[in-house]
């Protein structure tokens, strides 16, 4: 076992613990915050996987930019659509 492998196992443990937290909190009635918590945890898990398992921590700038591009464009799609969906019933008909 090298320290690199140990680190990966540590990350894996963190992801699994977060999975448990996500599952556990979903049984506590928090209203809309249940989803906020579970999706935030998912983002943290994904960040861990992409940073360490997918080795973005050791990648060049180019690869990091490409990795970020997908997320940025997804937010663009969602964000600009929300200008429609969040205002649709408040104006006009």
């Amino acid at each position: 076992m090298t320290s690199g492998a140990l680190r990966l196992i540590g990350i894996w443990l963190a992801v699994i613990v977060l999975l448990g937290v996500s599952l556990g909190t979903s049984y506590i009635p928090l209203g809309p915050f249940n989803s906020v918590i579970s999706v935030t945890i998912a983002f943290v898990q994904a960040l861990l996987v992409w940073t360490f398992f997918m080795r973005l921590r050791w990648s060049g700038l180019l690869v990091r930019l490409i990795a970020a591009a997908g997320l940025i464009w997804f937010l663009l799609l969602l964000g600009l659509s929300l200008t429609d969906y969040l205002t649709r019933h408040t104006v006009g008909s």
Partner: protein
Amino acid sequence: MSTVTAEPALPETESNYLANGYSLWSWLTTTDHKRIAILYAVTITAFFFIGGAAATLMRLELISPTPLIMGAETYNKLFTAHGVIMVWFFLIPSIPATLGNFLIPMMVGAKDVALPRVNLLSWYTFILGGAFVIVALISGGIDTGWTFYIPLSTRYSETQVVYGVIGVFVTGFSSILTGLNFIVTVHRLRAPGLTWFKLPLFVWAIYATSIILVLATPVLAMTLVLLAVQRVFGLGIFDAALGGDPVLFQHMFWFYSHPAVYIMVLPAMGVASEVITCFARKPVFGYRTMAYAIAAIAAFGFMVWGHHMFVAGQSLYASLVFSFLSYVVAIPSAIKVFNWTATLYKGSITFEAPMLYALGFVGLFLIGGLTGLYLASLALDANLSDTYFVVAHFHYIMVGGSVMAYFAGIHFWWPKITGRMYPESWSRLAAIVIFIGFNLTFFPQFILGLEGMPRRYFEYAPQFQFLNILSSAGASILAAGYVLPVLYLTWSIRHGSRAGGNPWGAKGLEWQTRSPPPVENFDVPPKIPQRPYDYDPQAEEAQRQ
């Protein structure tokens, strides 16, 4: 203009990429980017004429306000076939997959694209997608329009929607693979010393296009999957009966299909920059601004899709945002037109066929772009959207813009690709015929739209007949114009005079090698110029004296 004889004549037997195997098998298994470019060129030319035939039949039918040679169903299938084929099987792959494939590695001084086998896979994927669409056409056609709006496409159309959708879905992967290849090639294979701001604008344009291809195409693919599942199983998230939203489909569709317009027109802008500088013998005016404008168009192009939905039931506030952003994206396009014009200033201009096509491109793109200003305006769009005004507008961009530029590019690089010159007077004639025919076909359609004629109308009110006849007459001239290049270019492959390495005296890296180029593109590593478009009009004039 430096002439052909300035180059030392090359021995007939010298090896080049065309002479590297003559069998069909050698072509179908090639990983040479130049040969793949030609595979693409042949395929999309076939699709261009299939789509063109559909358009011809439509224009013929529209001579009369009442049924003339077909029924409404046939007409609807024809414009759907025309749209699907021209958008996904001609325009999207046109410049990137042919000229881009041929030139990008040479322009960056590389032997091939970064992933040659992926490049060939892309072509086969394209063929597979095309096959599905052909099957859809043969087995009855599709009558939803290329936009596949729900619920017409999911519940009410009784045509081969699923085959068509699968075809477009599969073709999407060919787009993604091509875009991916160019991105990696431009990043990783540039010759030493060839920095970003020494790259020709064509490379910038194809690079920006590739980003759109890679990030927008998967959205379309998955949207079509949702459509197909809803059609096959009878319900889905776009289903109003369940409380779903058919307008959501339009958001998804236009998130791809608006950037798709930039997939078509950015490469055209790249070609225009190469051709105009060469025949004006001048460096492009404002090189950096031009490069940034390309990047800005690609980025902002993703943020304006809602302007297709002003009257579709989208909220007013969303429409305000999208209207504003649509005006923002018009700025970089305007800059490009001004800069091309300024490039001509104090040049030493000659008017070979590529230049005629490129100037035609600038003019038609200008009109197409300016009419976009009407459609970005909420109040004007509420009158004009989905009328013939829109049809005319996007044909000015896609046909007047992209196809003109594609022809400019084909004529410009034809000597490089084939090693032969085409007959100059015929090619100039074709350029002029296409320009006239195009305007005669599509300018009347602006007025038809203003008069209130909706698009996709099989029958129309008699008052629209005069302009429709004018448009159909123009279309016949345009059709003749499109057939001409096929004839004389084909002729030139065997009978054209030999072109040297650099018949136009152009400055790009691709002109430093032989025509047709050797298999590995360069016999000796190309010299990297100090700056791009290093033309000198004064020296050119002095040499003429």
